[in-house]
Structures are given as structure tokens and as C-alpha cells.
């Protein structure tokens, strides 16, 4: 009887502790940001031999630079494929804005891939960034 009650109390305590802890569902860092307010990135099939990477990055202020710092492509088994660096020329970075969003196409051979997209925003000398891992997409 005492053992059953002890087990019950321990179980209730464990459940209570679990509910009280964080419900982390994002692979982001663990602090608020002075420059970034919202970010989103996802990979899609972009047609034959292409993957399309959507991104949306915003700040609650007008910042000097905002967008994607880099896109690293990996095969579905984790093998590294290549990196695309963000610039204003390739449209991954915007200037003097509070929001930058676009879709970027990457040429890839047939296979399954995912991407690690690093987004950022810079205000003066302060830069904050986050890395988002997309879902895996089949490129034909």
C-alpha cells in the first residue's frame, strides 16, 4: 500500500514538473533578440533539378541589413553538399528595411535534401542570427 502511494506521488510530481517546463518546438537559440523579431524558412521542390527555399525575416525596427546570411544544403543522410552565401545581389539580403522575404532557387542533382538557413538582422554594430533547419525535399 505504501509502495503504491509512493509511486503515485512520484508519478504525479513528475507530470507536474513536465507541464511546468518549456514547450520548446523550435531549434533556435535561447535568448530574445535586439534585432530579429520573426523568421521563417522552408524548402520545397522547385521543379526539375531545383529546390526552392522560402524565407521571411523581420525586425520590429528598421535595420541596416536583414535577410539570409547563408544557406547550407545537405543530403537527407546528413552529407554536406554546398553553401550559398547571402548578398544583396542574389536577393538574400535587404537593406534599410524591417522585413525581407523571398524564394531562392538552388540547382541540385536528383536526390533528397534539406537546408540549414541562417537568418540575421543588423542594427549598427549589433547583429543577431538564427539557424533554421528545413524539412527534407525530394528533387527529381
Amino acid at each position: 500500500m505504501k509502495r503504491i502511494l509512493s509511486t503515485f506521488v512520484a508519478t504525479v510530481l513528475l507530470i507536474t514538473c513536465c507541464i511546468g517546463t518549456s514547450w520548446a518546438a523550435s531549434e533556435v537559440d535561447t535568448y530574445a533578440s535586439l534585432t530579429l523579431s520573426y523568421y521563417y524558412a522552408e524548402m520545397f521542390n522547385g521543379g526539375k533539378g531545383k529546390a526552392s527555399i522560402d524565407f521571411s525575416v523581420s525586425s520590429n525596427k528598421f535595420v541596416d541589413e536583414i535577410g539570409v546570411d547563408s544557406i547550407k544544403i545537405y543530403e537527407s543522410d546528413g552529407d554536406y553538399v554546398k553553401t550559398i552565401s547571402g548578398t544583396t545581389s542574389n536577393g538574400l539580403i535587404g537593406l534599410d528595411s524591417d522585413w525581407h522575404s523571398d524564394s531562392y532557387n538552388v540547382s541540385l542533382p536528383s536526390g533528397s535534401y534539406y537546408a540549414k538557413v541562417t537568418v540575421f538582422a543588423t542594427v549598427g554594430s549589433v547583429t543577431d542570427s538564427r539557424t533554421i533547419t528545413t524539412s527534407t525535399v525530394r528533387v527529381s
Partner: protein
Amino acid sequence: MSELNNQNRHNYSKYDEMSTEALEQILRLDFGSLDETESDIDAILYISEVIEKRKRQSNEIDVDTAWEKFKTKYHPYTDGRSLYDFGDEDSNQTSEEGISKISLHNGRNLLRFRRLMIVAALLVACLFGGIMVAQASGIDVLGVVGRWTDETFHFITAGSRELSTHKVDSEFYETVELTLDEWGIDKDLFPTWHPEGFVAQEPRVANLNDSDTISVSFKEKDRSYSVRISCFYVPTAETGSFEKDDVLIEEYLHNGDIFYIFTNIDTITATCYDGECMTTIGGSLTVDELKHIIDSIGGN
């Protein structure tokens, strides 16, 4: 009563070995006899004395026997401790032979059981309170649940909802509403009010693989904020993440939609996702300004 001399007592010693019931029978027979000459008065007296002595002895308490009986059948300890001593069990047992320890300690067990039940009740109450808080923060009335940690906020499920129409006068309002109409969104999602001193900037649009977004920024001398509406082609749990600090999130209900209001160090954000469109208002605003902007959605 005549005294029996030693000689006569000796003659009547046979009665000492007879049972009490037999002696009483003898007395009854003598009492019932009609012939008084046959009655041995001395014998009767002797028998009466024997019976009386036996009765006195049966009423006396044998102290030693009673003590042994108590220790073996009633006393739970062999070491003389009080029945009310609920301390840890002493591993040292007395070496007194023939005494066994009674394992049922009713008083101590009941107290422990009561304490455990109180602790269990408190924990259940905490669990229930946590569930209530969780439901209050994430109840899926509209099919949309907001989830957050101390650092980020995001929507995780999708539902659908429609807002009532209204009318307004706000710069770029018509532009935004027309754009939403083109996207097949027949809801009034853009605020019809902004704080004095702010000037709306040209709307910007982004068309992605799974969503379309229109954003309007508002600038004042030293402050700015934006209104951004992202409409997804299909309901999704992947709507992005918001940065936030560890200040508690506030749920603000407007026209049946829940706006989640949270701060990110020096700015504030309010966001609502109805399963189709995510409306986000964020920037250098006060809470009152933000709520006033929210209240203006739908023409209020």
C-alpha cells in the same frame, strides 16, 4: 458454626479431592433429606468451607499469569517502549524469549497514510492548476494553438475562421484589402487606425511557395511599427517563430480571434493566426496603442 478439630478435618479430607460440583450435589442432597439424623453437620460444614475457599481462589487475579498474557497477546513491543512512540523502528530487539513483535502499528500507519494523501492532494491540485493554465493559454477553440517558450513564440496547429466586414478610412487600407481579395481572402484583416504621428509606407508583397504576404510599415520620428498579413495556401503548423523575452504572453481577444501579445526586449508584437492568415503587428508601440490598433481591425 462449630469448629472442626484436627481430627475431624482429617476425616473429611476426602472432600478436598472432590470437585466443587460434587460437593454442591452432596449439600443439595443433605438439604433435601427428610431424615435429620442422617445429616453430618460437621461434614456439611467442612464441605461448605471447601466450596467457599475454592470460590475465593477463583476470584483472585493471578498477577504473573495476567502479565504474561498481556505481553504475549497485547503488548507490541518487547523492549518496553511506549505504544505512542512513532520514531524509527529500533533495530535492537530485546532478547526476552517467547515474545513476538506485533507488526501492525495502527496509529503510526494512519498518520503516514494521512500525510501521503495530503501531499498527493496538493500535487494533484498543482497538476490541475497547470492543466488549467495550459488550457487557458492553448485551448483550441478556433483550432489554433499558440505555443511558446521563454524565448520564442509560434503557432502549431491550424483552424479557420471568418471575420465580419466593416468600413474604414486608413491609408493603404483599400490597397491591402484589394490584395487580400485577389488572394481569395474575404476577411477584413488590416487595421483601420494607427497612432497619431505615424505615416504609412508603401505596401510590400512577397509571394512564396506556400504563402503570400503583404506588409505595411508605419514610421514616426523615432518609432516605427509594421502590420504584416501572411496567408497560407493550406493550413499549416509551420508559420515561423517569433523572438520574445521572458515576460508573460498576454492573450487579447478581438472579434473572436486571439491575439498573442508579447515583448522582445524593447519592442512589442501581437500576432493572430486563424488557420488561414497570420496577422502580425509589431514595433515600438505601447500596449495601449497596440490594443487600439488591434481593436480597429474589422472597423471598431
